[in-house]
């Protein structure tokens, strides 16, 4: 059984069909790239997976269960975490607290425990802090815990988004243009990070226009155009698919 299975997914905005009967699978442990021209509906697919939009048709199965009607936070707690195309950090909040946001769904202390600082709450906080610090270290942001998120450089903000997503211990991580706004050196580091994530057993679905990253990081590609899937397969095959070249890559 695949970890994520998209079945006949359709989403319309008014007269526009942004996603049109798209189906594909993401196997456990795989790194899958979702590519396609601007406006092809990639981000919309992500928004459908994470419950930000509701599909008009089709279904989304995560580990066998349909998640298409669940609310976003529920989906996150089931094990899907994401980053956003335009960075959406909590700008005026410290870096570590940004990561703690991701940890939220794995914690239990409520209102009363928080007011009274019960031993359970204290222990849980301590562990959460430790876990989040580790995740920050993992993405390479050690020592910046107390900075305000918006004071980080653009590339680091992207990494922070990844750390926040990781803090929820997802099984599936979905990244929307993680290398957007990064220079080639930073992109290089990102490829390394994605490799390490795979090492941890995570499954990753990503959107990216930087083909150098896509080619190096992904094992499988799905190509959308005008909301429809036009190709799917291993990177080398897709790269040479004339339809993909015409719609997306352009001739050299």
């Amino acid at each position, binding site marked *: 059984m695949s970890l994520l299975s998209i079945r006949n997914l359709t989403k319309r*905005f008014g007269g*526009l069909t942004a996603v049109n009967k798209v189906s594909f699978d993401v196997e456990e442990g795989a790194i899958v790239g979702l590519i*396609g*021209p*601007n*406006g*092809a509906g990639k*981000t919309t697919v992500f928004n459908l997976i994470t419950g930000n939009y509701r599909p008009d048709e089709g279904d989304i199965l995560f580990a066998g269960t349909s998640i298409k009607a669940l609310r976003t936070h529920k989906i996150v707690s089931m094990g899907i975490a994401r980053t956003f*195309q*335009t960075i959406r950090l909590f700008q005026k909040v410290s870096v570590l607290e940004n990561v703690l946001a991701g940890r939220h769904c794995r914690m239990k202390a409520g209102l009363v425990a928080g007011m009274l600082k019960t031993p359970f709450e204290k222990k849980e906080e301590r562990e959460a802090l430790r876990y989040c610090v580790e995740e920050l270290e993992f993405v390479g942001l050690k020592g910046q815990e107390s900075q305000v998120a918006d004071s980080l*450089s*653009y*590339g*680091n903000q992207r990494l922070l988004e990844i750390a926040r997503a990781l803090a929820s211990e997802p099984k599936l991580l979905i990244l929307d*243009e993680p290398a*957007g*706004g*990064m*220079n*080639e*050196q*930073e*992109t*290089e580091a990102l490829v390394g990070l994605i490799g390490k994530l795979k090492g941890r057993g995570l499954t990753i679905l990503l959107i990216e*226009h930087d*083909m*150098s990253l896509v080619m190096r990081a992904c094992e499988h590609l799905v190509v959308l155009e005008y909301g429809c899937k036009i190709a799917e397969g291993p990177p080398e095959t897709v790269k040479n698919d004339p339809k993909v070249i015409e*719609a*997306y*890559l*352009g001739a050299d």
Partner: protein
Amino acid sequence: MGEGMILKIENLHVKYGQVEVLHGINLHVNKGEIVTILGANGAGKSTTLNAISGLVKVSSGAIYFEDQPISKVPAHRVVELGVAQAPEGRRVFGTLTVQENLNLGAFTNRDGDNIIQTLGWIYELFPVLLERKNQLAGTLSGGEQQMLAIGRALMANPKVLLLDEPSLGLAPILVKAIFKTLKEINEAGLTIVLVEQNARAALKLANRGYVFEVGKVALEGPSADLLEDPNVQNAYLGGNH
């Protein structure tokens, strides 16, 4: 100001609150050139463009446009003088339609024929925008917004075009198309200042380049030289890829 120079920056300092982020930038652009500015995140590239446009306050130093000091000129006047910018983060008017956004780009452009002509040309360049003409800009996909931002800046019919990471979030085919178009409009006489992360493509396009490091110019020179420079190769061109 030297012969043929259209834009010149002398010893530019800029602060955000107490923190100085530009520590004396010197830079010039000749008429008809494409100049690219490279640099790591946070080096001050966008800040420099915003200083030229008058969006951030200059704390010391001077900026000249066509021999006229503009560091104290308010932003809207700078546009009237002929400097347009497609800013970082696109900043399209989300609750206005694509068409309205483009019209706003031509706010200072009083040449009616030019407006119609440019508009046609932009729709030709980015056919998606024509399809989405009456859609709210805020609901466009990331790349579509990027196209709109570039198109909008062109609508002003500027003498100098400032582009802040125009290729961000664009599909490869479009990046190629845009760079090709930039070349064309440059050849038609428009001067371009290009901030890019995609250093290789930018250097291939530009006549000259500047490399910023933490608020200072670290390197400058003709693009060809920079492409060859081992420091640049290591830091911005991703080594041997």
